[in-house]
């Protein structure tokens, strides 16, 4: 009887054509750097020069309509930054935007998580329902803005329902009062972006190992205890990342505000992005906008840095 001698298989199952190349490719130090290279190249290539231009712009006093090329503009050094810090409209926009981010993201997370848990079990037509739930974020943002703008008009569908079905005397002037107007914007944002939270939490939950959950079950843990002590901690990474991503995006909220209220009445619902848009593209104050952007970048960086910290100590 012939005895086959088993050798440990060579990578790829057959002899490599270029053994030295393959060995080099497989050397760990090389391997890991090659992996990260494309991203680094892309980002440096595409973003470093524009970033330097932004920084430069933030230090000069320049507007396109000054009729001077941007590289010829006189230096203002940190005057732009000083002006930003003493700009009331800027601070109001910051506070307002943070408020929207906190409320909207919290709601999106809570609802998204509830939905993701609800959809863990199988039931009839689950795929179809999932598709429906994901739908809102697939619409172009402009269209979502328009739909909600029309819904909450004084003579829109929502007020019609309030008056004719819920017995309200008159409709609500949704866009009139800052807090109410902001809530409609938040509502639209929640409607549009809860699916994202659902998507990421749903796939996060799906990717979790079943074993620890089963182990906890046999150890007598209740559903809530499993959720609290097993599922959530295991999902922590995904949750933090989802929250960071969503917060960063919500912080830039623009389309909905632009279409639904235009930031009005006055500046009552103006978000930071809308203000920067006005500064840069309506008022033409590009170097002032650049300074503001840099300030925002720095401060968000610090906040996110703190938020990211817990992730770094994970195994």
């Amino acid at each position, binding site marked *: 009887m012939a005895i086959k001698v088993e050798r440990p298989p060579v990578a790829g199952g057959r002899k490599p054509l270029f053994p030295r190349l393959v060995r080099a490719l497989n050397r760990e130090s090389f391997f890991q750097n090659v992996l*990260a290279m494309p991203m680094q190249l892309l980002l440096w290539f595409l973003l470093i020069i524009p970033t330097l231009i932004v920084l430069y712009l933030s230090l000069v006093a320049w507007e396109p309509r000054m009729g001077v090329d941007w590289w010829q503009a006189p230096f203002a050094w940190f005057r732009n930054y000083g002006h930003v810090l003493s700009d009331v409209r800027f601070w109001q926009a910051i506070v307002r935007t943070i408020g929207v981010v906190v409320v909207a993201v919290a709601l999106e997370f809570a609802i998204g998580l509830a939905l993701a848990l609800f959809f863990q079990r199988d*039931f009839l037509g689950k795929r179809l329902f999932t598709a429906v739930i994901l739908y809102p974020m697939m619409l172009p943002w402009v269209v979502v803005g328009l739909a909600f703008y029309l819904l909450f008009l004084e*003579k829109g569908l929502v007020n019609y329902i309030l008056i004719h079905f819920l017995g309200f005397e008159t409709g609500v002037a949704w866009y009139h009062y800052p807090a109410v107007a902001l809530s409609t914007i938040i509502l639209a944002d929640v409607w549009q972006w809860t699916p994202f939270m659902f998507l990421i939490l749903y*796939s996060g939950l799906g*990717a979790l190992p079943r074993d620890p959950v089963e182990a906890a079950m046999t150890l007598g843990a209740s559903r809530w205890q499993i959720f609290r002590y097993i599922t959530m901690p295991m999902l922590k990474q995904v949750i933090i*990342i989802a929250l*960071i991503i969503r917060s960063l995006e919500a912080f830039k909220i623009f389309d909905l505000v632009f279409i639904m209220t235009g930031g009005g009445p006055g500046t009552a619902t103006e978000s930071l992005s809308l203000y*920067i848009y006005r500064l840069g593209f309506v008022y033409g104050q590009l170097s002032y906008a650049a300074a503001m*952007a840099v300030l925002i*970048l720095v401060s968000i960086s610090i906040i996110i840095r703190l938020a990211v910290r817990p992730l770094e100590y994970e195994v």
Partner: protein
Amino acid sequence: MTLIGQASRWLGALAICLVILLPVVWVLSISFKPPQEWLAYPPTIIPVEPTTSNYIVLFQPGNPVGGVAAMVSSAEPVTQALINSLIIAPIATAASVLIGFFAAYAVSRYRVGGTFMPFFTLTTRMFPPVAFAVPLLVYYRMLGLIDTQLGLILMYTAFTVAFSLWMMKGFIDGVPRHIEEAAVLDGASPWRVLFTITLPLVRGGLAATALFVFILNWTEFLFALVFTSREAITIPVQVSHYVGAVGRFYGPQAALGIVASIPVVVAGYLIQRHLVTGFTFGLVRE
């Protein structure tokens, strides 16, 4: 599960979907309404005089919307924008997700770039795009990339790769390392481990990331507006073109919104079964 459990779950899902669907139905309804009904009061969900002209006008711009002479649609046919979007968004998504996945693996397993690099990538999402637009334009002019598909592809890849990196890092971190180590002990090369062990395990995460990035790319407006003029305009820019002397053409805008969402819905439906992988720490259950 019991039949009652099934039924209650199903009803719950139905209720959730109805709430979610209300604005969708509203958009859908507008897309079938003639101009005089777009803002009409009392509003109706079912169009009084339903019309398909909002859709027809997307492809044959000469036809007045809803047969109303004053509503001559004034945009180019959507074909060009649709083709552009169908080229730009998928390529940028694939590039972003792949590049992000590799980088995420390096970061998760080897801590390449320490803590700075992954964090640094996030700054691309912190910058208010308006402030970035003009400097980028200056740079793109140097590169000759304005109003080209390649220009948008590069830009979308760069601006979404941070999300790909972070989302994929989250999923890769969730794969226990000892599974990979076992494969290494069996003599597999690191590339082989990456493609045959890790990649299948994070399939769900990859699908979710790809879907999200695709949606971002598919619906991006500001850069598409600023960086294109004729040749490379995308769907969201095209949506904004449906305006006239009497305001926005809500009908065609809604119709295009619906049409534009179809590819995303299809993509979403196709990758859905990958969304939940549910692996059990490496070994297949008996």
